[in-house]
């Protein structure tokens, strides 16, 4: 659907640098990355709102460089909704239709249908300024869908919504997407949304593509330490391979030896990433297997979370574990000494010199 | 140092501003304690400053002596005195046709051809508003007088009358010729232009918007303009032709509320000065007046001519 080839775009000091990306038709693609990375810029470039310095964008295999935004058949929804404040909800939704040459009955019908689907009927004649964030967001989505675009660009569409409304919206968008065979490119900060919706994910940092793949790949097998940090992997360490053989390696981190599944010669510096959920508390007297790492530490901090308890362990190699709520309370107390077991398969190894892309 | 000086406020007709510049310098040199401040307006405005705005003036100098009795021999608002009880006539002037070397047919106009040149369709002539400025009604009088002087019936009509809407029509009434102005003097084509006073008229002339303007000779000389002098019989300069002048009359088209005299009769131009009873420094004012009169007597560039007769 969209092919971005070596796109470069300068805006002041920041911009997009040599970005190539392919988004397949009818997928829901996510663009994620830290604030200021250039995510919004990419959407704007696809929509034709910036003229690239280098590279080109193909939509449906045709170069759209010379095509002005209104001719690209793309709708864009900004994070701040960008509703037209001087038009009512119905007028906002009908705006795109009025630019085309639909008859007024057709327009009326499309608008009514969208108002209905987005449960906006009673706001029909209100002005955006008087709506709550969630209501505004729904209007923005309905407005974008009204022109029946083939491609929908969403800039953090659900960020400012309260969770209840967010969920409703996501379900609705999924339904519409399926009906219309829409391709969606969405900028998001939320891993929850990415897991629920993304067919493919691209991670952008400082204007560059650093990793592309599925949600699982990005969040569980980050390609670089930066992505790992961005993916909120709780334990990230730098170390050196101390032993290698049989598809397994041992990595020395501050004197602690971690086992991991990889084939990297000894002596090479690597970064280890271990999700907090992959850490288990060893029951007393259990000896670790050959494919396990065993670390002992003092619990320094305990934080309850909705789906578990976050435990921080101090020690030469401080670890963070996310433990199920069912763990017996007596073993989880601040100041207690615990032994942690980590499966070698749960340890992701990133060689430090060559940043491989998965 | 300015603070210790006594200001003498002189309200003067615009056509006197240039010569008064010299008077100011010399008077202040002669009398270091005085600070002469000359403020210029149209003659009627000059008097209004005193009578309506209660502006304090030491000396009032106007271009038409008749304005002083008309407007200032009245009891003051909230007082018993008149604004003034007398005036001193001190100079005269003549109406001329001023032009520049960019004016159309500047090389053709002479004492003899001016009537024909001014009447040409592409020539524009200007004069000031008769309702506001003495030079304005004097311009009309010149045209009226020229008609009989040159025995050129229809001259007034060609030069001025027919270019207004409604047209200005001359009426003869046993020897006097009068024109009655409508309340709005609106030109009907591009042949004539009317402006508030000589300052606007002169800028139009210099800018090339008009080709010829009826003006005082002293103004034309003062601004280094070319001009065509007119015969004394019609240029309102000579007391000798007082009777002839009186045959021309302009009836101003005022609204019913106006407090000025409506009928202006032709007469020799006489500049006059007075010291209002409200003058804050009457002694100095008198000194300045005498100094000015003496200077006027001497004449020079920009000065209206000294009064010839008694």
């Amino acid at each position, binding site marked *: 659907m969209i092919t971005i080839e070596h796109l470069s775009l300068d805006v002041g000091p920041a911009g997009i640098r040599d970005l190539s990306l392919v988004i397949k038709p009818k997928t829901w693609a996510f663009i994620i990355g830290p604030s200021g990375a250039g995510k919004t810029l990419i959407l*704007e470039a696809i*929509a*034709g*709102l910036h003229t690239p310095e280098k590279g080109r964008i193909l939509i449906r295999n045709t170069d759209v460089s010379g095509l*002005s*935004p*209104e001719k*690209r058949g*793309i*709708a*864009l*929804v*900004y994070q*701040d909704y*960008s509703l*037209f*404040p*001087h038009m009512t909800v119905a007028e906002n939704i009908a*705006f*795109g239709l009025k*630019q*085309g040459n639909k008859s007024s009955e057709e327009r009326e019908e499309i608008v009514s249908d969208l108002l209905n689907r987005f449960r906006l009927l009673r706001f029909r004649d209100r*002005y*955006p*300024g008087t709506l709550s964030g969630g209501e505004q967001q729904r209007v923005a989505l309905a*407005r*974008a869908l009204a*022109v029946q675009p083939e491609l929908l*660009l969403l800039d953090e569409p659900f960020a400012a919504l309260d969770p209840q409304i967010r969920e409703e919206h996501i379900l609705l968008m999924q339904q519409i997407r399926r009906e219309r065979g829409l391709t969606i490119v969405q900028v998001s900060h939320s891993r929850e949304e990415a897991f629920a919706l993304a067919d493919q994910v691209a991670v952008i940092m400082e204007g560059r593509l650093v990793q592309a793949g599925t949600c699982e790949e990005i969040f569980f097998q980050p390609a670089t330490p930066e992505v790992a940090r961005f993916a909120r992997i709780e334990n990230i360490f730098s170390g050196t391979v101390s032993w290698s053989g049989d598809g397994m390696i041992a990595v020395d981190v501050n004197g602690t030896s971690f086992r991991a599944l990889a084939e990297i010669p000894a002596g090479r510096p690597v970064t280890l990433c271990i999700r907090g959920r992959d850490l288990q508390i060893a029951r007393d007297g259990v000896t670790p297997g050959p494919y396990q790492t065993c670390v002992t530490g003092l619990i320094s901090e305990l934080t309850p979370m909705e789906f578990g308890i976050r435990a921080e362990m101090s020690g030469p190699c401080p670890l963070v574990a996310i433990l199920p709520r069912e763990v017996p309370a007596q073993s989880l107390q601040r100041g207690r000494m615990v032994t942690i077991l980590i499966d070698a398969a749960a340890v992701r190894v990133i060689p430090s010199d060559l940043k491989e892309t998965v | 140092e300015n603070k210790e000086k006594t200001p003498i406020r002189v309200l003067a007709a615009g056509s006197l501003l240039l010569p008064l510049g010299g008077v100011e310098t010399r008077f202040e040199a002669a009398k270091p304690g005085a600070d002469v401040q000359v403020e210029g307006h149209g003659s*009627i*405005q000059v008097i*209004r400053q005193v009578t*309506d*705005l209660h502006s304090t003036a030491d000396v009032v100098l106007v271009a038409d002596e008749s304005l002083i009795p008309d407007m200032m021999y009245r009891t003051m608002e909230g007082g018993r005195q008149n604004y003034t009880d007398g005036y001193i006539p001190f100079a005269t002037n003549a109406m001329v046709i001023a032009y520049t070397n960019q004016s159309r047919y500047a090389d053709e106009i002479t004492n003899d051809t001016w009537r024909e040149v001014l009447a040409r369709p592409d020539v524009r002539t200007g004069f000031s*508003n008769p*309702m*506001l400025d003495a030079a304005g009604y004097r311009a009309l009088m010149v045209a009226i007088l020229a008609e009989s002087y040159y025995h050129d019936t229809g001259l007034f009509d060609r030069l001025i009358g027919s270019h207004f809407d409604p047209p200005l029509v001359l009426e003869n009434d046993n020897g006097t010729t009068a024109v009655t102005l409508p*309340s*709005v*003097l*609106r*030109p009907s084509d*591009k042949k004539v*232009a*009317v*402006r*508030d006073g000589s300052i*606007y008229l002169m*800028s*139009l002339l210099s*800018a*090339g*918007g008009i080709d010829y303007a009826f003006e005082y000779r002293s103004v034309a000389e003062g601004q280094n303009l070319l001009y065509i002098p007119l015969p004394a019989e019609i240029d309102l300069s000579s007391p000798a032709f007082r009777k002839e002048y009186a045959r021309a009359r302009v009836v*101003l088209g*005022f*609204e019913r*509320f*106006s*407090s*000025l005299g409506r009928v202006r009769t032709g007469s020799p131009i006489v500049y006059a000065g007075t010291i209002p009873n409200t003058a804050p420094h009457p002694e100095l004012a008198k000194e300045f007046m005498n100094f000015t009169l003496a200077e006027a007597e001497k004449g020079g560039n920009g000065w209206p001519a000294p009064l010839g007769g008694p």
Partner: protein
Amino acid sequence: MIRSCLPNPFIFVSWLLGGVIVLVSGLALMVIAVPELADLPHLTAIALDGRVIESLSLTFAAGCSAVLFLLLCGTPLAYALSRTTSRWRSVAESLLDLPLALPHTVAGLMVYLLFMSRGLIGGPLAQAGIFFEDAFLGIVMAMIFVSSPYYVNTVREGFERVPVHLEYVARTLGATEFAAFRFIALPLCSRHIWSGALLAWGRAVGEFAAVIMIAYFPEVISALMYQRFSTGGIAESRSIAFIMIVVCLVVFFTLRTMTRTRGENDDHH
């Protein structure tokens, strides 16, 4: 935006300080109004005077025409300025500001030199039968010249505040550049357009020196007032002034009340 319900003693002090200006305006109004209201029959007579009414309508008509011209040409200009980053912008803006500080007689002279029938612009147009001297068009031109900086500056400020995202969104929804301007930027700037038009109108309607240089006739209200002062004295001209003041107060009050609500939804804060 709705403001605090908190009592604020500092506002009170501000009113005291700033009240001086309101007070002066109020007193100024009074010195004109009191003598006029004391002689109502005279005032009525003047108010019903055909020439006064004619001149008032002429002035307002010319003022409105000038504003209309500014709406048509000044609005695109303001838009173009607000969307231009080139350094020529500063040059253009300084040129536009020129009539702001010019003595009005000079402004009048400039207009005259340009638009008289032998002028740089007036010349060619005179050939085509369009005249400015002593004509309605001349009045309008002079008014446009002196009031344009007020309009253009105010409206430019307005366009600069229209969020660029809104225009972007409109474009992706199928609007051409012009449609985005017409349906988004323009209506969102309406508050500034109103207020600029009001400033410009006021400046235009009150002008004297610049107008009478090119068009002594037909008589705008300030020329009539000047003439009445010369011929009838202060009483005459004050009545006209008072009528003018009343009309202006009514116009301003109505327009301000109308604009208060306008553009209320347009803000993003």
